[in-house]
């Protein structure tokens, strides 16, 4: 049986919603980074789904997906490094504590 495109898109939308919720609702910086990762994967799933069902002979979508994975990995590395530095400085990873720009 062939899984229809709509199913992929629904899974992608659910993943995206979960990511948005995680980014908005979570207080820990690490969790926010995880949310961003989920967002990226939702987009990647959508792109692969659209490629598979609309232009299977074109490789551009695959390259796009690889780019997204790469960006996700780099983002994770830099983000975690930032969080670690912040933790060392403040002894906390709660993003609400980082509000200096407001003042």
């Amino acid at each position, binding site marked *: 049986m062939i899984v229809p495109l709509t199913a992929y898109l629904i899974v992608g939308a659910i993943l995206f919603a979960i990511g*948005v919720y995680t*980014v*908005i*609702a979570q207080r820990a910086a690490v969790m*926010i980074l995880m949310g961003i990762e989920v967002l990226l994967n939702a987009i990647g799933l959508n792109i692969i789904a659209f490629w598979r069902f609309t232009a299977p002979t074109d490789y551009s979508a695959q390259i796009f997906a690889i780019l997204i994975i790469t960006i996700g990995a780099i983002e994770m590395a830099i983000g975690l490094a930032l969080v670690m530095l912040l933790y060392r400085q403040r002894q906390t990873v709660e*993003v*609400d504590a*980082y*509000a*200096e*720009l*407001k*003042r």
Partner: protein
Amino acid sequence: MIVLLAIPALPLLAALAALRVGRRMPWGGGEFVVGAAALSLIGLMLVPDGANLSATWFESGGFRLTVGLEFSPLTWFVATLVASIALGVGIYSLGYMAGKADRPRFFAELGLFIGAMLVLVLSSSLVILFAAWELVGLASYLLIGFNYAEPGAPQAAAKAFLMTRIGDVGLLLGWLLALTLTGTTEIDALIGALGQQQLAPAPVALMAFLMLAGAIGKSAQLPLTGWLPDAMIGPTPVSALLHSATMVAAGVFLVLRLYPVFEAAPGALAAVFWIGAATALVAGVIATGEMDLKRVLAWSTASQLGEMMIALGLGGPLAASFHLAAHAAFKSTLFLAAGVVQEEAGTRGLDRLGGLIRALPFTGVVFLIAGVALAGIPPLSGFWSEEAILATAARQSFGAALLIVALIFLAGTYIGRAASATFFGERRPDDVGKPAWPMKAGMALLALAAASLGWLLSGRLGSILPFSAEPDLASAWRAFALVAAILGLAFGARRSSASAFGVLPAKLRAGLMAATEWPTIATMRISQLLNVVEAALDRVAQGIAKGSSVIAGTTHSAERQFDAVAELAAGGVWRLAQNSERAEALGFARGGDALAIDIVGIGERLRTLQSGRLYLYTLALFVWAAAALVAGGLMLWL
């Protein structure tokens, strides 16, 4: 090269030293001057022939002004003469000035005098020569007026300064002309250009006459003689120096130095002869009637310088330089002896002196040696040099030779008269002191030179100086001159203090002194004439000024009307500006204020958006993105 520079620099430095520390020295600074003169003399012996020190001062257009010293046979000869006489006179001054006031000033001025003369003699550039020429004039002015409190001294100094200055203008114009012709101030370049016939004869003749004017002023030739006898008011060592080596010799030296210029201009050479002849004759006659010992010697100097000019004019530079040296030696000796007489006897009036040979035997002998040398009795120096002049004259013409013999007779007369009136006959002043030893030493030195210089230089001078030698003199002329000299001496000695030729010399002197003032008076007349011209120019200028003031008046009124119109326009514009300003203040400013307040309020409200909560920012981002998507979709769909 350093030695060459040191020769003129030493006396100048000595002058400075005398001025600075002379007060604390035992001889009042005189030791500096004497030492410098001695060192300069030694330096002159050390410097090799042909030494040359030259540099370009500056270049302007095609003109190159140089500075430099040159060591040629002629400059060496005259510089040695200057330094030797300066040494003798300097030693004498040590004794002369002992116990007198203002010694440092005297020796400083003396050092300046000697140094300036050495620069003048050694200079290889007309600029430096002229500058030194003026310095010599300045130093002589200072020294003649040394006893400025004495009545007549400032006047005599000013007279000497101004009269020589008239000649100096000629020299100034002369060297400027040389600069124009050759493009450089180097004397050698000028002489070289003359040798190659590169210069047109007319400007060269003009240049020779201009230079001659300078020489006449400095050497006290007619018509600029008047300052020389008046200069007698200065201290005696100054007179000795001035009359022998430093001041008056400069004129003769100038003609010698620039002899090729004069040779190229026969007219100028003839003028040299005639001026010299007139001066020698007139001054010689006046000297026979003068009643003041120093003034006799002064007139004699003018006469002897005239003889040198005669020799130069007749084409005998060698004889002239010979006589320059011999005259410097015996005339400085005579002056030094006269100075002793004045110091010890308290007067120099011939009618109040007499028989001093017993009171002042040394001075008397020295005076007699120098006097006999002046008269031209062998074997003393005057005989040899006057013989050389006579040989030059005899080669040219019979009349000129006769003139020289007459001059020798006159010289014998006036010096015989002065000697007999001063040293022989009834002893006049009773209380006569003794001269100090430096005075005796100075006199002895110069008397030795006066006695020996003749046979030392005779026949040898031709190999020292680059001038052609004179032919031998016929023995008839020689005997004639000797007889004239002896006759003159005897005649003068017999006349003693009385005038040798009655009232003639006095009349001649009065006439001459009046006549020699004509250049001054003429200058004054010219200046008066210039006054008239100036007044006329003034009137023209006044007329122009008045006319322009009328024009200015009319333009002024026109201007005023323009002004009024402009003021009206300006007023209108100003009022307009004021009104618009008020409108702005009322409208725009108030509106702007309200706007600003509103913006501030909006800013305050917007400020609350910046909560600092990360999730709010993220939410806003997603909401905005969603809204944008919805809007985009709606626009696409519609």
